[in-house]
C-alpha cells in the first residue's frame, strides 16, 4: 500500500527533456502564425503626446498594429487592476509596452516597430522607494485608491503607497521595557531577476466566435484566464489558456507578461494566431523582478538571549504596477519576525510604487529579504550577548504547538532539526579548530541562519483521474510542470493510492477547457493542495471500483478490498479481479472511470483570498563556510549546508533537487546579482553578460538534507518546501563574512568592493587574531 510515496523514483518528465521533445512556450507553432514585436518606452516616466503609426502601416508584411488606444478601459492585475496591456496616456517604467506589431515574420515586425514615432513629454522620476515616499514625490498612479482591488490591499490616497499591511501581537513597547538589551538595525536589498533560461512568450488566437485561446509557459492557467477575462470584461469560458512546459519560473512566469500583447494583437489579425517571444532584454526590463527592500528591525532581548519584542518596518519597492507586489507585502510582512517565539510583535509593510520594473512573486515571496535583516541581526545579538549564534537561535526557535509571531499556534515545525542538520554537516562545533587563514592569505568564516515562509491561504485545487479500460491512468490537473517535478509527485500519490505502477500513467496538458480549477502553481502549494486533490480523486476511484466489484461479487461493498491494481472479497483473496477485468465485466463495450478530488482548506477566518492564517509554514536553515580575500574583498563560499523541512517527502530526490538548486540561486542573489537602475529609472544591465548568474564554476560543495515534520493535513504528511530553499542563504553568507573578517555588510549584494571598503574603514581583518 502506498509503496511509491516516499520513494525517489525517476522523474517522469526527464525523458522528454533530455530528448529535446518537451514543448516549451517558444516551441509552439501554428498554421498561419504571425510574429509580434513590441515597441517599448525609453523613459521611466513620461506622458505620451502622440503615436504616429503611418510609416509602420505602409510596410509590406505588417498585418496588425495595436496601441493602448485600442484597449481603452482595459486594466489587468491579480491584486489591483492598475496595468494596461499597452500604455494608456503615460508610461511608468522604462520598457513599458507602448505599441505592438504583428507581421508575417519577425524581421518585418522588428522593422515596423522602428518606424513607429512616439512623442513623449518626460515627467519627474521616482527611482526608488524612499524617493517615492518623500513629500512632493511625483505621483505614479493618480487616484490609486479608485482601482479595483482585493480586500487585503489598503492603498493610501494621494501617495505612491499601494498598500500598508500591519500585524501586532502583545505590546511591543512593554516588551522593549522588559528587555535587557535593545538592537536597532537597518538592512537593504537590491533588485534581482528570476532569470529563467526560457524567455517569456505567448501565442494567442481569436477564433471566429470571438473566443480567445492562449498558449503560454504560464504557471497558472486558470489565474491567467481570470486575469485576461476580467481585464477584457469577458466571461471566463470565453478565454481558454493552455500552459506548455515552463522553462524555469521561480515566480516570474505568472500573470500578464507576453500574454496581453499577443492577445491584443490577435484581436486584430482576422483569426490568425500571433506569437510573441520576448528577447532577453525584454525579459529583464518588462516581466517581473524581486522587490528591493529597506528593512528597519528593532529587537529586545534578555541577557540569556530570550527574544522579548520585535518591531519590523519594511519598505517594498514594487515598481510601476502592482502585479503581486501588494500580496507579497501583505503575506511576507507576516513572516518578518522569523521562525521564533516572540511575545510582543509589531510588523508593518509599506508597498510603494516607483518608476521601475514591476516587482512581484519571486521564490520565497519576500522572505529572503526579511531573513537577510532578521538573521543578520540575530548574529549581532549573539555577539553582544556572548552567545554562540546557533545556540541563540536554538533557544528561541518555534517548536510544535508554540504560538508564532502573528499569534497562531504552529504545527509541523522542522526548523530546529534543520538548524541541527546544517550545523552538523558544516562542522559547526569543530569550526574553531580549522585554520582561520588559508595558505593564500584568505580569512575563513562560518555562518548559520534559518528562515520561514507561509503559503497563500485559502486556495483551492481540483483534480480528475481517468482510469481507462486497460487499467492505465490519466492525471488531469492544471498544475504546471515548471521544473519542480509536480508530475512525478502527483503520479506517486495517485499510483500510491491505487496500487498502480508509474509506467501506467499519462498526464493531461494544463488547459482551462479540460483541466479543473487550480488556483496557481505557486506559493509552494501544489504538493499540498493538488496533492490532496489527487489523493481524494484516487480514493474516489477506489471507492467506485469497490462498488463495481461488490456488484459483480454480489456482496456488500464493505466486504471488498481494492489494492495493488486488483479487487477481491476480503475472505477470498485468491479470487481477485484486476481493474481492467472489473471494467470489462461490467462494461464490455468499453468505458472509463473518473475519479474526482477537490481540496479547499478549512478556514478559520473567512474564505477570502489571502484572508486567512497560513495553512502551513515552511522552515529551513543554511550554514556556510566562506573565504574572504582581504586584499580584494572577494568572497568565496567554499561549502554550503542546506536543509528544508519537507513534512513527509513524497519524493526525497525531488526535494534535494530543490534544496541544491535553491542554494546556488541564492548565492547569486547574495554575491553576484543586481539589476542596476540609474537615477532616471534606466535599467543599465538587462543582459546575461552584465547581469551575471552563477555558473558551474561558481558552485561550492553543497551538502543538502531535509527534516521531516509531517503535517496532519498534507497528503501523506507532506507539505510544500520549494520556496524556503533560498531564504536563509543570504544572511548565512553575511554572517560568515563577519565571522571571517569582522565586518558587517548591510546592503545586498555583497560585492567585493563593499567588503574591501568596509575592511579599509575598520581595519578589522588585519587586527583580527
Amino acid at each position: 500500500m502506498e509503496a511509491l510515496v516516499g520513494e525517489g523514483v525517476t522523474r517522469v518528465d526527464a525523458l522528454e527533456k533530455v530528448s529535446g521533445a518537451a514543448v516549451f512556450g517558444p516551441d509552439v507553432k501554428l498554421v498561419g502564425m504571425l510574429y509580434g514585436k513590441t515597441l517599448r518606452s525609453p523613459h521611466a516616466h513620461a506622458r505620451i503626446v502622440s503615436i504616429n503609426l503611418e510609416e509602420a502601416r505602409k510596410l509590406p508584411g505588417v498585418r496588425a498594429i495595436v496601441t493602448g488606444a485600442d484597449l481603452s478601459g482595459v486594466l489587468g492585475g491579480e491584486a489591483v487592476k492598475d496595468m494596461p496591456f499597452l500604455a494608456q496616456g503615460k508610461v511608468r517604467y522604462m520598457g513599458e509596452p507602448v505599441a505592438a506589431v504583428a507581421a508575417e515574420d519577425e524581421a518585418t515586425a522588428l522593422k515596423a516597430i522602428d518606424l513607429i514615432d512616439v512623442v513623449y513629454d518626460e515627467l519627474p522620476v521616482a527611482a526608488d522607494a524612499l524617493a517615492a515616499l518623500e513629500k512632493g514625490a511625483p505621483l505614479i498612479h493618480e487616484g490609486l485608491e479608485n482601482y479595483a482591488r482585493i480586500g487585503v490591499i489598503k492603498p493610501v490616497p494621494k501617495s505612491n503607497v499601494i498598500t500598508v499591511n500591519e500585524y501586532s501581537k502583545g505590546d511591543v513597547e512593554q516588551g522593549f521595557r522588559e528587555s535587557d538589551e535593545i538592537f536597532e538595525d537597518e538592512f537593504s536589498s537590491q533588485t534581482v531577476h528570476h532569470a529563467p533560461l526560457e524567455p517569456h512568450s505567448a501565442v494567442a488566437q481569436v477564433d471566429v466566435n470571438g473566443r480567445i485561446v492562449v498558449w503560454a509557459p504560464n504557471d497558472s492557467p486558470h489565474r491567467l484566464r481570470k486575469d485576461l477575462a476580467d481585464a477584457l470584461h469577458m466571461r471566463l469560458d470565453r478565454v481558454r489558456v493552455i500552459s506548455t512546459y515552463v522553462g524555469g519560473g521561480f515566480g516570474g512566469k505568472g500573470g500578464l507578461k507576453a500574454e496581453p500583447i499577443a492577445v491584443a494583437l490577435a484581436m486584430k489579425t482576422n483569426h490568425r494566431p500571433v506569437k510573441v517571444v520576448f528577447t532577453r532584454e525584454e525579459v529583464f526590463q518588462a516581466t517581473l523582478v524581486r522587490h528591493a527592500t529597506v528593512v528597519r528591525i528593532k529587537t529586545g532581548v534578555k541577557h540569556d538571549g530570550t527574544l522579548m519584542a520585535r518591531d519590523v518596518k519594511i519598505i517594498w519597492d514594487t515598481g510601476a504596477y502592482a502585479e503581486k507586489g501588494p500580496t507579497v507585502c501583505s503575506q511576507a510582512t507576516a513572516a518578518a519576525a522569523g521562525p521564533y517565539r516572540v511575545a510582543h510583535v509589531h510588523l508593518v509593510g509599506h508597498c510603494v510604487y516607483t518608476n521601475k520594473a514591476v516587482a512581484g512573486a519571486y521564490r520565497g515571496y519576500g522572505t529572503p529579504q526579511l531573513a537577510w535583516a532578521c538573521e543578520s541581526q540575530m548574529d549581532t545579538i549573539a555577539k553582544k550577548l556572548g552567545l554562540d549564534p546557533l545556540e541563540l537561535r536554538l533557544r528561541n526557535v518555534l517548536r510544535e504547538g508554540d504560538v508564532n509571531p502573528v499569534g497562531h499556534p504552529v504545527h509541523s515545525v522542522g526548523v530546529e532539526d534543520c538548524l541541527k542538520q546544517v550545523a552538523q554537516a558544516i562542522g559547526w562545533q569543530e569550526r574553531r579548530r580549522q585554520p582561520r587563514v588559508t595558505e593564500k592569505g584568505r580569512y575563513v568564516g562560518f555562518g548559520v541562519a534559518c528562515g520561514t515562509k507561509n503559503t497563500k491561504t485559502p486556495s483551492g485545487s481540483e483534480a480528475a483521474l481517468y482510469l481507462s479500460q486497460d487499467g492505465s491512468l490519466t492525471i488531469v490537473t492544471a498544475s504546471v510542470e515548471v521544473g519542480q517535478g509536480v508530475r512525478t509527485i502527483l503520479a506517486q500519490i495517485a499510483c500510491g493510492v491505487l496500487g498502480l505502477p508509474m509506467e501506467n500513467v499519462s498526464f493531461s496538458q494544463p488547459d482551462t477547457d479540460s483541466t479543473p480549477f487550480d488556483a496557481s502553481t505557486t506559493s509552494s502549494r501544489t504538493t499540498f493542495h493538488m496533492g490532496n486533490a489527487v489523493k481524494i480523486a484516487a480514493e474516489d476511484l477506489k471507492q467506485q471500483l469497490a462498488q463495481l466489484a461488490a456488484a459483480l461479487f454480489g456482496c456488500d461493498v464493505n466486504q471488498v478490498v481494492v489494492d495493488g491494481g486488483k479487487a477481491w472479497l476480503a475472505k477470498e483473496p485468491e479470487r481477485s479481479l484486476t481493474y481492467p477485468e472489473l471494467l470489462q465485466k461490467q462494461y464490455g463495450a468499453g468505458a472509463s472511470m473518473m475519479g474526482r478530488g477537490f481540496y479547499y482548506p478549512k478556514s478559520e477566518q473567512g474564505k477570502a483570498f489571502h484572508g486567512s492564517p497560513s495553512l502551513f509554514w515552511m522552515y529551513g536553515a543554511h550554514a556556510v563556510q566562506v573565504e574572504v580575500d582581504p586584499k580584494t574583498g572577494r568572497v568565496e563560499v567554499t561549502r554550503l549546508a542546506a536543509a528544508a523541512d519537507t513534512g513527509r517527502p513524497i519524493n526525497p530526490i525531488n526535494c534535494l533537487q530543490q534544496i541544491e538548486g535553491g542554494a546556488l540561486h541564492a548565492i547569486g542573489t547574495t554575491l553576484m546579482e543586481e539589476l542596476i537602475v540609474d537615477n532616471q529609472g534606466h535599467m543599465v544591465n538587462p543582459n546575461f553578460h552584465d547581469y551575471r548568474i552563477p555558473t558551474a564554476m561558481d558552485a561550492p560543495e553543497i551538502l543538502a538534507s531535509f527534516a521531516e515534520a509531517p503535517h496532519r493535513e498534507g497528503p501523506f504528511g507532506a507539505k510544500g518546501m520549494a520556496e524556503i530553499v533560498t531564504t536563509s542563504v543570504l544572511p548565512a553568507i553575511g554572517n560568515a563574512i563577519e565571522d571571517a573578517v569582522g565586518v558587517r555588510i548591510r546592503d545586498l549584494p555583497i560585492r567585493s568592493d563593499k567588503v574591501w571598503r568596509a575592511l579599509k574603514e575598520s581595519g578589522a581583518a588585519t587586527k583580527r587574531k
Partner: protein
Amino acid sequence: MKERSVTLRVNGELHVFNHVPVRKTLVQLLRDDAGLTGTKEGCGEGDCGACTVLLDGEPVNSCLVLASEADGKEVLTVEGLSREWELHPLQQTFVEEGAVQCGYCIPGMLLAAKALLDENPSPTEAEIRGAIAGNLCRCTGYVRIVLAIQRAVASMSRPR
C-alpha cells in the same frame, strides 16, 4: 534582404534550405526551418549556452553562427544524440541522476558535455565544470548535472 541556399548535414541527414536570409542564425534555421525545436534559444547573445550544438564536432552557440556560415557542415543537435530508441549514455545518466528540472538548459548542456567527452574521455570534476561553464542553469545548482556527466564517463569507459 539577401538570401542564399544552405546545405547542412543535420543529425546525419542531408538538408537543403533555399532562400535563407543571410541574417538568419543557425538556431533560427534549426528551429524554424528544420523543425528541430529541441535546441533552445535563451538569450540570442551567446551568454547562456542553451542553443549549444556541435558544428563539425565543435560546440558552438548556434545563436552566434549565421546559417550561411554553417553551409556544407555537419550539425549535431539534441535530437541526434539518441539512436533509434537508445539514449546516449549522457541522456541516460541525466535521467537517472535527476540532473533535469525545468529542462530548458539540458539540450545545450548535453551537447557541451558530449563535446568534452569526445575530446577528453576521463575528465576531472574541474574539467567538467569548466566545459559547462558557458551553459547556464538556473534550477539545479549543477550538482546532479556534474554527477550525471561523471557517471556517463564511468559507463562509457566500461568495455562493452
